């Protein structure tokens, strides 16, 4: 148990006042840190799927914490129970806090009922990243997909979340789409709630 048998001079981290979240660091500091994360993971895996999975796992942990932090700070501890509610929470609040702007778009998939897409012209993460040709379709947005997955899972909406590049006419770099595929139980619950 934490704290047993040791005299700690600082208060429990949960007792400290919560910051307002206005503090900033430079984008380059974050870009350097993220690049080290990707480089470290590259040494630990053999293929791209594993690398994406590891980035997703790292993002998952971030997402879980972001949900708790934002629920407490921004929404007064109110919990989202509807699908559209949680999606717009991610698309506006989470994106605004993490990346400084709301996501470019939120769309419902046309082919399947359970698919939704959040698109971004240029993910903040990918700004200083170039993917070598031999890595094919790898997208560092897997980290962001992990964040979204973390938020959804911990809010009670299990889903499979992936990041994809979608080439856009007239734009040199493809835009990134986060594809969210909800689990069966989420859709059933949503149907029951009416």
């Amino acid at each position, binding site marked *: 148990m934490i704290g047993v048998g040791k005299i700690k*001079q600082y208060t429990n981290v949960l007792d400290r006042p919560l910051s307002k*979240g206005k503090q900033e*660091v430079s*984008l380059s500091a974050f870009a350097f840190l993220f690049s080290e994360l990707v480089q470290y993971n590259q040494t630990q895996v053999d293929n791209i799927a594993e690398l994406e999975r590891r980035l997703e796992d790292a993002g998952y942990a*971030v997402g879980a914490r*972001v949900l708790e932090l934002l629920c407490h700070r921004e929404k007064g501890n109110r919990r989202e129970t509807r699908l559209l509610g949680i999606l717009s929470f991610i698309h506006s609040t989470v994106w605004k806090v993490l*990346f400084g702007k709301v996501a470019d778009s939120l769309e419902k998939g046309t082919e399947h009922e359970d698919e939704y897409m959040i698109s971004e012209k240029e993910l903040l993460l990918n700004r200083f990243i170039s993917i070598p040709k031999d890595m094919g379709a790898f997208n560092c947005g897997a980290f962001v997909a992990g964040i979204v997955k973390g938020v959804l899972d911990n809010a009670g909406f299990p889903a499979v979340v992936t990041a994809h590049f979608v080439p856009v006419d007239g734009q040199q770099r493809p835009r990134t789409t986060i594809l969210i595929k909800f689990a069966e139980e989420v859709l059933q619950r949503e149907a029951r709630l009416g």
Partner: protein
Amino acid sequence: MAPAAPKSGDAIFASVDRVNAELFTLTYGAIVRQLLTDLEEVEEVNKQLDQMGYNIGVRLVDEFLAKSNVSRCVEFRETAEVIAKVGFKMFLGVTASVTNWDTEGTTCSLILEDNPLVDFVELPDTCQGLYYCNILSGVVRGALEMVSMKTEVTWLRDMLKGDDVFELQVKLLKQIPEEYPYKDDE
């Protein structure tokens, strides 16, 4: 053309793109967590964090010199002041202070009261040997090595272990003269 005057840390920080510190904090936490899961030994994690910091430092110093326009530092004292006031401010948004100079002027302490890396962090009992912010010591070491100073950077005080500030000791080991990889007359 006369070189531009060196800008203050605040001015540079205001002019660079910035991101929310919480994203930075949480990403760093994810990195440390991944390292702990993979390496399991606290000493190994410390070393890996230092290495990652070193890699960052060697590239960070280029950006630092480009954006800050500082003139060449005449002595180590100036270097330490510049790191504390301009460097930390420019990247982390916080300033450090420099204290505890030894008599020869080769060792000093950088004191950080506010550290965005450790928001929301508590060290569990199983990881008491972990230097959570070890990436910072690597960054300072790497950056200084790229400007021909070989240093040793260690943590003296750590807020996560109960102290009231973060204290980083920077010791100048030696100045390495620049070596050219080719001969002039070839």
